[in-house]
């Protein structure tokens, strides 16, 4: 009899708490039945264009400055080699 009373009390407590538990549990969204195309994407979802535009112009600047620097570096190497060769030739003619 005690057991039955305890079971009824437990069931009563659960039933009392049920509305509070149900109120706290978020309801899952209904299952998706199909995808619907959006006509206008919200602004926050769109890929921003500014970094791409700035990236393109920055890339041009880097490539052109880098290329001009590369020409200057190669020209300096050739000039240094020419000076070294001329000095060697001058030393050689001096020794003779």
């Amino acid at each position, binding site marked *: 009899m005690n057991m039955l009373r305890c079971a009824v009390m437990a069931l009563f407590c659960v039933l009392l708490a049920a509305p509070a538990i149900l109120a706290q549990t978020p309801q899952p969204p209904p299952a998706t039945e199909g995808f619907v195309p959006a006509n206008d994407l919200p602004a926050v979802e769109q*890929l921003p*264009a*500014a970094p*791409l*535009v700035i*990236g*393109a*112009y920055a*890339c*041009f600047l880097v*490539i*052109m400055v880098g*290329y*001009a620097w590369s*020409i200057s570096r*190669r*020209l300096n190497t*050739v*000039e240094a*080699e*020419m000076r070294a*060769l*001329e000095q*060697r*030739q001058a030393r050689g003619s001096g020794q003779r």
Partner: protein
Amino acid sequence: MRKLFTPLAILTAAMLGYAPIAIANAPYESTMLLVQKIFYFHLATWMALATAVTVCAAGSVIYLFKGNEKADRIAFAAAELSVVYCTFGLISGSLWGRKAWGVWWQWDAKLTMAFMLEMIFLGYLIVRKYAGPGAEKLAAAMGIFGAATAPFIYKSADWWRTVHPQTSVMKTLGEKAPPMWNVVWFCGVAFVLLFVVLLTLRVGLEDRRAELDRLYLEAEA
């Protein structure tokens, strides 16, 4: 040319300095809006590239048939600049395509042929560097065939199905949006002038290398 070089370099720098202001003031395109502004540098790059491959082909033909070494040096310099401009053309197109088409790259006729052009001119430079004696003539042939692909790349958007805008865009731009058209040509001229300036510097480097080779030969003799 030496007398003209400094004024030309100053004019080019001034035009390139003003280009971003002109582009910022140009009207927005109705569907692509801000990202369409890449177009002004993108198209100008291909204009300069077309000039570069034409110079390379002309220099290569003169070298092959007349043996003119100066023409070969000009062709070599133009081939290197073709690689530089083509690289920027592909990168700027990719950045534009990411926004306009939603992808960085598309293996369609125009883009794939442009990529092949880059490969041909990279091949030209590799041949010049590593192919040993006779590499100049082999590279010259590559330069001519590389340049021969340029008209096909230009017309490919009209001939085949491709996501790339057709050549008629330029025609309609001139009729419908003269302010945009003016900026396109301003940037195009600036990029071609930049090509001339860089070509002059690069040919100067090749001239000095030829002079160095001559000095070495004299020293050994």
